């Protein structure tokens, strides 16, 4: 399911997804149309532009909230032209199988498809640009100073929503090593252990935002 008021982009995205093995069951131009289509077609995933008619504000986010309430099994990817922490946390509070990505992320087709697949499989994903901004924000007594450079890197990947095995793949170490890093980070920053990935993402984001 695709929702974006820009037909060109929507069609482009649709053919990309079709080409990568997805079955695009419907396309919507605004939130109302999207909800109607989601209710009737029950897709596995809805990819939604945050800014849609009529207000061009956060209609996509509102629609995502409704979908999450009515059909909690539907994975949702929200696309935004510029990512904002509050929006990301707002969305991620809805649970797992959620993603919040920059629109331009779409142009890296292979990576985008992989991310959508991860989200459908249960991950919670936040755009790396947003995480980078959060991690690199400068603080006087930065609590992140207690982390080693490797740990910072792991923290960033945690915030993006990568699982331990995902992190292991990205930084070329064993999953056991990642687990050790994660435990160390959580301990140093006094963050709670979370059973689910999306809770971990939310906790890390909250921490980074409030630090």
């Amino acid at each position, binding site marked *: 399911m695709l929702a974006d008021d*820009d037909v*060109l*982009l929507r069609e*482009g*995205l649709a*053919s*990309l997804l079709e*080409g990568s093995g997805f079955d695009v069951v419907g396309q919507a131009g605004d939130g109302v149309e999207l909800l109607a289509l989601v209710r009737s077609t029950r897709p596995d995933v809805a990819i939604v532009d945050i*800014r849609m008619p009529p207000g*061009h*504000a*956060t209609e996509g986010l509102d629609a995502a909230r409704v979908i999450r309430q009515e059909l909690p099994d539907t994975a949702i990817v929200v696309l935004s*032209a*510029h990512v*904002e*922490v*509050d*929006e990301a946390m707002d969305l991620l509070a809805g649970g797992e199988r959620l993603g919040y990505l920059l*629109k*331009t992320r*779409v*142009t*890296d*087709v292979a990576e985008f498809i992989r991310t959508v697949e991860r989200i459908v499989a249960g991950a919670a994903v936040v755009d790396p640009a947003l995480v980078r*901004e*959060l991690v690199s*924000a*400068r*603080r*006087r007594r*930065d609590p992140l100073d207690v982390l080693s450079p490797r740990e910072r890197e792991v923290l960033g990947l945690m915030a993006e929503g990568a699982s331990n095995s995902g992190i292991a793949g990205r930084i070329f170490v064993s999953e056991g090593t990642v687990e050790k890093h994660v435990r160390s980070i959580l301990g140093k920053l006094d963050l709670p252990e979370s059973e689910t990935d999306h809770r971990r993402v939310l906790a890390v984001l909250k921490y980074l*935002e409030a630090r």
Partner: protein
Amino acid sequence: MRQRVNALVHRVGASLMLRSAGQARLAWVVGITGPLLVAAALAPFRPSIGLAGFLFGTLLFVVAAAVMGGLRPALVGAAIAIPPGVYYFAPPYDNLAIEREGDLFVFIGFIVVAAVLGILVDQLVGLARQQAALRRVATLVAHAATADELFAAVTEEVARQLPVGFARMGRYESDDSITFVAAWGSPEDGFPVGSNLMLDGDSVRGQVFRTGRPARIDNYDQISGPLGQTARELGMRSSVGVPIIVDDRVWGVMAVSSTTMPKYPADTEERLAAFMDLLSAAIANAESRAELAASRSRIVAAADETRRRIERDLHDGTQQRLVSLAIELRMAESRVPSELPEARAMFFRAAKDLTDAVADLQEISRGIHPAILSKGGLTPAIKTLARRSAVAVELDVEVERRLPQQVEVAAYYVVSEALTNVAKYAHASLVNIDVHASESAIELTIRDDGIGGADPTRGSGLVGLKDRVEALGGTITVAGGSGQGTSVVARIPIDRKSGIDAERRQAIVR
């Protein structure tokens, strides 16, 4: 002649009402007891002092009574001096006969001198009081008191200058009605401040409105229209109104009324007009100030609106199309047969460059207008600024609610510009940002620990900021000597009524 006497009587009444009741009573005491005391004190020396000496002595008290109470106590005092004068000081002594014919003329001359002195002193005192009142009004004007303060003060001063029970200042509206803007004297429910009446009929205020000239009414029996009707119900007997002319149009009217006097003194219009000139100047001044402030505010608002539209066009139009284009390039890339790796690489590069261009465009559009400000308000917008700051930021933001758009935009740019300057010039290691919103204003402090010595006139950024903040009736100061760091402190009023001073003035002055 009769008219003149009437006028004189009213003038006496007028001068009485000018002064406080206590002072008027004292005038009578001085006028009555003064001559008797002089008689008692000087009686033993009457051969050497003579009648002229005695009368001269009483004149001092006559003048004193005139200063305090006007002509009437002065004349009564002079009259009281005559019996003891005849009895003790005019030969033959100790009886009420007059021996010398000349003494009779001395008495007549004395009364005339007392009357003339009384009138002159009375006028002089009146003039002095008027000058003092005018000076008070002028001071108010000069200190740029708010319009309603000024109106109330002028109305009161006018009332104190005249035999008035009742003074009201009104502003003419475009629908031929009048709105009362200041009131003095009872009954308080007669034409209260804020009330609005139509100008139909031949009331004083209606006449002034139509002719642009002073008008008076000495008999309310035949006066028609809602204003005349109300005046009659309030028991008005006489009224005088003078126009307030601002920029060649009849802006409003100052009118005084009395429930007791059958007729106002002839110079009332003139005395009122003296105040109206000052008032006109003050109103014209406030109007042009209000217009200037309003136009400043409109310019800033229009510029903001344009920026918002550009940002939106960029976002919803250009940016979307570029992203679509990048996707198309990717699709094209995927369809290039693998035997043509160079073509593939070209598509790949083109798509990547395009994506970078979109990122640049995003950065630019954020500079034009931060979308997060319209979406999320000031707190997330300032947090974002702080995160992107090149210098470490300690943030303390307490703005729970959404503020008027212009205020949010101005506050955002204060922080944004201050952070830019810190990064460029301050060589600071830390910036403290405090943002607090109260009911009536938002206060921002951005303080760094850098080298200081900021020059507020440097660069167009701060000047533009000052214009923006001041257009909203706010203030911004940049302080910090060399080596003390720099602090930018801004205060922007929120409440539209008291906050946007310009609009408030406009509302009153209009």
